[in-house]
């Protein structure tokens, strides 16, 4: 949150963040769970509702702002980070959130996303990744697995997908995290960390689209598979996961990371997670543990480092220049500066 956002907690409840609009996603859509988690998290911000603004693009996910009793803008496809940058830069008193989808953020909106991240604008960007275009009824997206059969790829998609976290890290993102629609507690933890981060916070939320890409993240959710697939990152803790008898750990391998059975590894060699490493190489390596295949998928905060924010610096330049200036007088001064002459 920007410096100027006040944190004198009003006592609001989740229900205070519900708007009067009927929620219109398909039954079973992961967006419902995310909405509920966000509504139950927002009181923690300690802000009056009017101090919060959600900006979205276009997509199922981008309907999100309508359902929150905050200020909201449902803008146009892909442009939310740009619009939000204008808002956040000119309004340090607001907590500005962007809600976007894998198509909205990574396809048409890719440029605005990477630029918002490199600038480190004080935005919390929630990317609902269902690995499909939901709203336009099921085309593959930049995160769909190669070979995916959709209406626009009847012989299988041939586009190699992005790894959103790698892309964010390659774009100099200062905060990068991943979480899951179905894990409310984890989702809230990540939102909290994002909100506390000063600068751009990029949060990928795996979101199920039961209609066009059902069970895309089932391996991370099903009791049979999740323990062996989901890696919960905890700062300062060795990276371990797996079910009883199948404990796994993450170790360094070359310049990257690798999963190994715990019993084959000296505990001292297990990677201890640290999100505050300045060099993004570690977080990048971590982002490569999973991609389109979710066998070993870390969730949590990959990276969180302090860097100057774009909006903060812009404002301090303006404040420095403008402090104590009488605009009207200064305008007169400007206009009369340099070569002028008088006709009597």
């Amino acid at each position, binding site marked *: 949150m920007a410096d100027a956002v006040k944190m004198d907690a009003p006592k609001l409840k989740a229900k205070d963040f519900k708007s009067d609009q009927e929620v219109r996603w398909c039954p079973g859509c992961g967006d419902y769970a995310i909405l509920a988690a966000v509504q139950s998290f927002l009181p923690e911000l300690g802000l009056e509702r009017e101090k919060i603004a959600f900006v979205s693009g276009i997509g199922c996910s981008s309907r999100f702002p309508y359902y929150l009793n905050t200020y909201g803008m449902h803008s146009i496809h892909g442009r939310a980070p740009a619009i939000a*940058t*204008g808002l956040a830069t000119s*309004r340090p008193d*607001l907590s500005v959130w962007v809600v976007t989808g894998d198509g909205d953020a990574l396809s048409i909106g890719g440029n605005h996303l990477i630029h918002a991240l490199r600038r480190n604008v004080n935005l919390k960007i929630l990317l609902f990744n269902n690995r499909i275009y939901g709203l336009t009824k099921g085309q593959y997206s930049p995160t769909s697995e190669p070979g995916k059969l959709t209406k626009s790829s009847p012989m299988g998609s041939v586009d190699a997908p992005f790894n959103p976290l790698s892309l964010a890290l390659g774009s100099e993102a200062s905060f990068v995290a991943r979480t899951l629609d179905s894990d409310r507690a984890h989702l809230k933890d990540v939102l909290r960390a994002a909100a506390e981060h000063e600068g751009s916070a990029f949060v990928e939320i795996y979101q199920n689209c039961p209609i066009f890409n059902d069970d895309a993240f089932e391996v991370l959710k099903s009791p049979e598979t999740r323990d062996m697939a989901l890696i919960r990152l905890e700062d300062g803790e060795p990276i371990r996961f797996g079910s009883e008898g199948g404990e796994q750990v993450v170790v360094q391998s070359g310049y990257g990371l690798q999963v190994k059975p715990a019993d084959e590894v000296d505990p001292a060699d297990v990677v201890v997670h640290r999100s505050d490493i300045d060099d993004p190489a570690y977080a990048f390596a971590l982002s490569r543990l999973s991609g389109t295949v979710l066998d070993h998928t870390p969730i949590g905060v990959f990276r969180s480092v302090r860097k100057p924010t774009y909006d903060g610096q812009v*404002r301090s330049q303006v404040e420095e220049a403008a402090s104590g200036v009488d605009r009207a007088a200064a305008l007169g001064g400007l206009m009369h500066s340099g070569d002028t*002459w008088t006709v009597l």
Partner: protein
Amino acid sequence: MNTVRQLDRVVIRFAGDSGDGMQLTGDRFTAETAKLGNDLSTLPNFPAEIRAPAGTLPGVSSFQIHFADSDILTPGDQPEVLVAMNPAALKANLRDLKPGGIIIVNTDEFTKRNLKKVGYDDSPLEDHTLEDYQVIEVQLTSLTVAALAEYEIGKKDAARSKNMFALGLLSWMYSRTTEVTEEFLRKKFTKKPQIAEANVAALKAGWNYGETAESFAVQYEIPPATLPAGTYRNVTGNTALAWGVLASGVASGLPLFLGAYPITPASDVLHELSKHKKFGVTTMQAEDEIAAAGAALGAAWGGALGITTSSGPGVALKSETISLGVSLELPLIVIDVQRAGPSTGMPTKTEQADLLMAMFGRHGEAPVAVLAPQSPSDCFETMLEAARMALQYRTPVMLLSDGYIANGAEPWKLPDLAELPDLGVEFATEPNATDASGEPTFLPFQRDPETLARPWAVPGTPGLQHRIGGIEKADGTGDISYDPANHDHMVRTRAAKIAGIDVPDLAVDDPDGEAEVLVLGWGSTWGPIGAAVRGLRDRGIHIARAHLRYLNPMPANVGEVLGSYKKVVVPEMNLGQLALLLRGNFPSADVIGYNKVRGLPFTSNELQDALEEVVKNG
């Protein structure tokens, strides 16, 4: 002493290589001329975008100034005096020079090598090329170097001051004093006094050369013009636009947010505003034009005056975002400094071919206000008007400047800032309705009955939380609505809001009321048209004129004005875009287009001929 001859007006063009400092020379001559009280108008002409090799034709840079003892409207059709710093400058500019005109050449540069670079087999100074002109040969470079012999600077550096020598010479010729420039040079080079003094010395040497050299038979005097009393400065359109933005901030009390992506010829507005953070201007150099418009719109949502500047290609990219602005009904000012198109076109050349894009270049029925300044200084007031419309009606506004206005300069009588309009906005702070259960509620699309503007409740306002978006919304509540009747209503309401914007009547200049032909222009053709009309009237030809600042909505009396003339001539630097709008809206008017799309402003001569033709032959 030489003969002194009185003139009422002169057009001089300084031309040289990009590295020769012609813009500075022109600028200084302008300052001296302004100080003397002449009215003036200037036009710089830069080489195409990349610096071409020295001495080549594409590398030529020039600056034209027209000054007179009465008010003038254009930088002049044809220079009467050409200062040519090298063969390229001569070759590139010769065809524009008035027959019989004066050419001052720097003979030092007329070397074999330089001549060859521009395709002169023989020196034009030695063959018949310049037969029809008065050629004054000056060894500008060597005279300058000689004059600076006593300064501790290298020969190459000394030679660089030859533009000041030329300036001094021309200042003498046209009876200008050099003090303003001396002062300027000393200020500019405060940290390098050696350089300052060398330049001053070159300047004086040039002046003295004129005073003493045999070659100069005549010295000219152009008496001051009688201009309205006031303080004046010379201003380019881009600077006046930028200052208009600052003034809009003062007049509205709002913070200013400029989202821009560099593009010729609009970049200078960004540059100028970037310098003035003390006015509470935030300038964002965005990743592209779409982001620039988006950020400005986001800032506008947050209560700033949001502005985005670009030229044709960039404005085309903003279309979808402007359409969102139309749907959200938020203020947003889009400045299009038009250049020659289509596509990349001729980026440094002027044109007026974005009018129909400004009107219609968006999907759906997406009306916006459109207006255009008529001259460099007029940009200031036009910008204030754009701000008024945007803020009062909560709408995107397109302001169409062009390359001619942007870089051209003219004296500007500085406005009295105490008389700035009040552009203050009342943000919504309270509920404006009651809901079914009698509770106070806020309807973001409940309109002002007069202006049809919706309330502007900025994020942060307690109790007024609401959501807006690009999907069609129910009038009043702003909730998403697919209701057919509501859509029709909203489409018509948005149109009515724009159509209902308060704009002043079109003023017609028809001194004796005997004219049967009206010439109607818009934008930067104002000067050339004015000069042409003046020329015709001087010859006793009746002609009326009017100039449209407000292109959408048009003033209420346009139909009536058109109807009172037999013929309406519409000169445009496009293929007839305003003409189409006029015919479409006022089918009974007899609209005759006069169109040239050459990347250059009209000359008043060609317009005079064309208008005379219509007056005489219908």
